[in-house]
């Protein structure tokens, strides 16, 4: 197995080279005449008003939260799906219960209106 992951490790180490080459080449080839106007942040033709910090909706946070729950669920479900051939009917129904409980959570969030984009 380490043999398999050797490829991934090499990939991880080598892959920054591929985006780095064009970016560095760009840095070398491109003109360098910076001035304050040019480096201003872009905002539809007018100067930037205030800092870029804006109050964000709690909605984004809720989506991320629900996602975390489902992500953890996936970690459980993937090995079970891979072992599907060796499972008994009892196991299948315990998986169904597992999924049902999570669907319950989703239904709660739905009923509470937490999935609504406001």
């Amino acid at each position, binding site marked *: 197995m380490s043999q398999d992951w050797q490829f991934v490790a090499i990939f991880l180490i080598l892959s920054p080279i591929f985006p780095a080459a064009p970016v560095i080449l760009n840095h070398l080839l491109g003109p360098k005449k910076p001035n304050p106007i040019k480096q201003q942040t872009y905002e539809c033709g007018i100067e930037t008003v205030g800092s870029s910090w804006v109050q964000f909706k709690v909605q984004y946070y809720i989506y991320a*939260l629900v*996602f975390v729950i489902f992500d953890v*669920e996936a*970690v459980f479900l993937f090995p*079970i799906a891979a*072992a599907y051939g060796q499972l008994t009917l009892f196991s299948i129904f*315990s998986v169904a219960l597992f999924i049902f*409980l*999570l669907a319950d959570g989703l239904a709660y*969030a739905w009923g509470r209106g937490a999935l609504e984009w406001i």
Partner: protein
Amino acid sequence: MTVEQIVFLLISAFTLSTAVIVVTKRNLFHAALALMATFLGVAGLYVTLDAGFLAAAQLLVYIGAISILVIFAIMMTRRLMQTTEPAYNAQSGFALVTAVISFGLIFWVFYVFREFWPLIPDAVTPLASKPIVADEILQGSVVVMGRSFVSSAAYVLPFEIASVLLLAALVGAIIVAWPKAEDKA
């Protein structure tokens, strides 16, 4: 030293140094970035232990989900661009005590119980190489894990309890984060 040990040392050094950055950086966003790097290092450690599935799960859950949540939380509660948090707050003493206790616990488990720990050789050296396991067993370990999650002889009860725990976490989070219906109107 074998290649494996060198790799292990490199990954551990990476993990620990990024962990130090997490606690010393005053800029919370950069601390969160360093935390992701730490998670990546932990995933690397899993790979050196031949636990590929755990490594991928670490990446998926911790970097792909938990870190996003952390960054969202930082963005929603702090003024981003000026954020420089003080290094200590009222809870730092408590945190120190917790850290010492949990480190002591782990050390105790490994040191006192080392004779019950079948995989670690008697002469415990920090660089003892890991036991050699046949490749077929390693390849099949994910399937074994999946099977034991749901077989009545193994972990089906903890598995269902995990589901209830996730449900409770979701419901609790929504109750805490979501405004009440009457507040909205």
